[in-house]
């Protein structure tokens, strides 16, 4: 006991440093030696698996994009965007009508899913009583709907939108409605997560200052949740833009040479055209299919970049 003041009086830092270093060494050794070596290995394996997963995702997407550019290379020019489809002269064929068709359909999807999806999410998160059986039933169904195969929505669209109650016929609007139903669960789920992630103090503070529930939601919660909601919209649009199967059922054609309109006449979309061309025996058409993949990527990035810009603008930390 008598030694202690002696140590400290002689040199103030070394003993403390020694204690700190000794402690750190002990911790480090305990991490690296015998008993806990297993944990260290587990950690390494886990990290390896994470990197493996990431690299698989990156490699497959890089391979796909590279393939599209290489295989479609001979056709990557402005004709691809401005010309109409042609099987008589495939070397000059373009995707103009399909690009417009896709923009019409996806435009309709966005206009439908943003208000409907966000509205449903606000109700379920801010107004609905989670203990209520009906609300829980709705909740469960939305989650299950996200996993329903897209062709089922195509059949639904054919029966209720193209024919039946709505009777829109084989038009772009019917395609929009069908795809909107398909991706609505994605938007609702993502929006709910985003709304839930807004600190309750924001909402409570707003209410405490005399705001109505609606004012708190509209002026505080929604702007704060916007980045997360936009992520959901990006995911939904990315899925919708690539769908071919349900659209074939609700009237997307593979050959149309006139610009589409929303409520009448035939329309085509990029995935249905690519799907059709990729199966043909003619090499020119297969090249055209690969070039179509590039066109679709460009279009998808264009649409999503707007959402990404908005998301970054509204991103904030608490």
């Amino acid at each position, binding site marked *: 006991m008598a030694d202690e003041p002696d140590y400290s009086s002689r040199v103030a830092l070394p003993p403390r440093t020694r204690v700190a270093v000794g402690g750190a060494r002990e911790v480090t050794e305990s991490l690296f030696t015998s008993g806990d070596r297993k944990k260290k290995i587990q950690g390494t394996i886990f990290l390896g698996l994470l990197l493996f997963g990431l690299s698989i995702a990156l490699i497959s997407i890089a391979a796909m994009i590279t393939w599209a550019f290489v295989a479609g290379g001979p056709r990557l020019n402005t004709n691809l965007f401005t010309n109409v489809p042609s099987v008589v002269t495939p070397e000059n064929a373009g995707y103009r009508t399909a690009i417009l068709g896709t923009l019409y359909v996806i435009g309709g999807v966005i206009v439908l899913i943003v208000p409907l999806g966000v509205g449903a999410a606000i109700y379920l998160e801010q107004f609905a009583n989670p203990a209520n059986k009906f609300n829980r039933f709705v909740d469960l169904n939305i989650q299950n709907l996200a996993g329903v195969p897209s062709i089922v929505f195509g059949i639904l669209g054919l029966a209720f939108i193209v024919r039946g109650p709505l009777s829109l016929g084989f038009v772009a609007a019917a395609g929009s409605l069908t795809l909107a139903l398909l991706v609505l669960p994605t938007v609702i789920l993502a929006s709910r997560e985003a709304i839930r992630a807004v600190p309750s103090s924001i909402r409570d503070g707003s209410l405490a200052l005399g705001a109505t529930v609606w004012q708190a939601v509209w002026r505080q919660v929604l702007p704060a949740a916007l980045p997360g909601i936009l992520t959901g919209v990006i995911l939904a649009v990315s899925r919708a833009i690539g769908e071919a199967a349900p659209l074939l059922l609700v009237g997307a054609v*593979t050959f149309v040479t006139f610009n589409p309109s929303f409520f009448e006449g035939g329309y085509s979309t990029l995935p249905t055209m690519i799907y059709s061309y990729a199966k043909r025996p003619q090499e020119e058409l297969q090249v055209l299919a690969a070039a179509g993949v590039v066109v679709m990527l460009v279009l998808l990035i264009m649409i999503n970049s707007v959402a990404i810009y908005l998301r970054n603008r509204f991103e904030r930390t608490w």
Partner: protein
Amino acid sequence: MKVTRRAAFAATALTSALVLAACGGSSDGGETTTPTSDPTTSAAPSPTETGGGELTGSILIDGSSTVGPLTEPAAELFMQANPGVQVTVAVSGTSGGFEKFCNGETDGNNASRAIKEAEIELCGENGIGYDNITVANDALTVLVNGEAPVACMTVEQLNAIWTEGSSITTWGQIPDLDVPAEFADTPLSLYGPGTDSGTFDFFTEAINGEEGLIRIDYTSIGEDDNAAVTAITGDVGAMGYVPFAFYQEAGDAVKGIGIDGGDGCIDPTAENVQNGIYTPLGRPLFVYASDKALQQDATVAFFEFYINNSDQIADIAGAVGLTDEQKAEQIAKVQALAGG
């Protein structure tokens, strides 16, 4: 700030509208031109046409993805001659197409098989009168690798290979087939389309005697006939069957073998199909036309154009054109349906 936020929020919904407006505007300028038209491939007006530019209307054809590639160039050439008519072609499959056709929603249905009983009933219920118009011929081609020392097979041999429960696994086991001794042990790998394909239905019926009857241990290439060509190119012991168009585009790495249906070996060629001697794998490709649709002059003109220009259209799509006799028969069918 409130306004900005609200505007930005709304902008998400309006994004598409803006993009649309921009794209729509830029492309409208080119709408009336047909950049793809090429004077050398433009169709001469057919004799039965009423003259270019006078016809107006819209025609929607749906159905088989085998016949669709034939109807597309037909539509394209027809619209070059008749800019006032809008023809669209969809491919929701023969069955899906008949469902719409018999509901009166389409003007014609591409079909790689004949209409079935249930579909006939549906058409009857909805008062749709129809007829099958043969628009081209196809030769289902049995493909082998270019290196395989085989040039011809009988229907019996094909049946022995493909029938349900067949135990043939090497080339030497094929009954009565002369192959060099060193090739006899080569494993026989089989490729065929999936069960949803009209090509599958036709082949099983023609070779195995019953639609859908086939051995189960072959590799299904689904709906993508190119996959069969690729597989056979890379495997000397492979065999598969594809529509004529895929054989024509496949090059020398694969070869289409002759079929002996009892009268000697008949090669898969356009002439043999047209002469009707490539049996049993020669087949007609149909477009079903409805009487209702043929009340429109443009639709009648389209079908007549399709039939009369069958050679050029079939050439583009890789199928086999109609003979003069077939043309006369089919024109008569169209006129009968339009008149009745």
